């Protein structure tokens, strides 16, 4: 009986250690954020002897996913996990609502406006957004383009400080 309990706590400790290692992996396109901040890291679990890390893509065509999967695998290897796998899960679909508050603060400090409010449906399609400038805080900003340097960002400009900035789109 004691042995079984010991085995399962041992298992939980392994999962915690694996999670810690995986959670430190950064998004190659927004290196200030970890995959944990982003909400891309969905689960760390045990499948027999194998540690399984589940990640979800931000966008269907996100080119960073292969890189992230590789980095997670490397992080687990470095942490001493021999039997490991990284699984890609599509459902439920990733949303910016999963981004941590710490993540949003890091984004802003990095010069990227964090997603505003919660992801909405069709109602917001033709709506007007109010995005504060990450540099000076002004609300006198303008969207230059719906699409920026990566799929997850839009291109904006501040009319007060005249600086262009990226906005992490709300989806």
């Amino acid at each position, binding site marked *: 009986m004691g042995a079984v309990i010991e085995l399962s706590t041992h298992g939980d400790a392994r999962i915690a250690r694996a999670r810690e290692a995986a959670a430190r992996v950064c998004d190659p396109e927004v290196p200030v954020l970890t995959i944990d901040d982003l909400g891309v890291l969905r689960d760390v679990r045990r499948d027999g002897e194998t540690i399984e890390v589940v990640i979800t893509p931000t966008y*269907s065509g996100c080119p960073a996913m292969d890189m992230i999967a590789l980095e997670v695998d490397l992080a687990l290897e470095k942490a001493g996990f021999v039997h490991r796998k990284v699984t890609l899960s599509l459902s439920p679909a990733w949303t910016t609502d999963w981004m941590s508050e710490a993540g949003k603060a890091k984004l802003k400090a990095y010069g990227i406006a964090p997603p505003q409010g919660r992801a909405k449906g069709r109602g917001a399609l033709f709506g007007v957004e109010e995005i504060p400038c990450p540099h000076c805080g002004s609300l006198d900003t303008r969207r230059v383009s719906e699409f920026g340097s990566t799929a997850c960002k839009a291109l904006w400009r501040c009319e007060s400080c005249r600086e262009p900035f990226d906005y992490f789109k709300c989806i």
Partner: protein
Amino acid sequence: MEAPLFTYTLRLADNALVLGHRLSEWCGHGPMLEEDLALANMALDCIGQARNFYTYAGEMEGKGRSEDDLAYLRDCADFTNILLVERPRGDFAFTILRQFLYSAFMHPFFEQLSASKDERLAAIAAKAEKEMAYHLRHSAEWVIRLGDGTEGSAARLSEALADLWPFTGEMFEVDAAERALIEAGVAVDPASIRPLWLETVDRVFADALITRPKDVWMQSGGRRGEHSEHLGHLLADLQFMQRAYPGSVW
């Protein structure tokens, strides 16, 4: 006879891949830097959607075909995309109007498909819906800007509309196999999308100062593998590497 769900998934994949390729042809040729980025990003979304659908189609077929096999090793007659998406990219007005007509349909389509009884299709659609929302908004804004812009931009938009409109009918086609999937709650009935699609089109066209053409004879065939010569040229470009160097990898 292929399994209906395989055919259905493959059609979704082919539409996304072919349109994604057309959009990607703009990379480095956009009318300005911001649009170059936007078109490349939209291409990436479509190709990502195609990858998800192809992977699923390959798995359910059970013959060991991967997403790459399905994208790179099938010939024209095996492709089941609608003719709309294989039209050559044309000028910017043509590309942006096609994106608008397509995403005004696909956005509500994916929204409905995300409630499909097939969990995998539902999962892929839930992601794609969010992406098409941005394609719709972006392309709609440009349609208005071009239509309500200069004489030149309005003329190009009108010309694009006359070219593209006869290819919009195929989005609403349904065959017997698909009808069964619709009744099973797996597939989306495109007829249910039509009122919303027309409403979106009319609303944006009103701001763009253009009118929806009167009902004309609609082109058809792509879904059955009957394509224009343009698809052959597109595939020659898309598939060259795998045809010339079979099995090559990055």
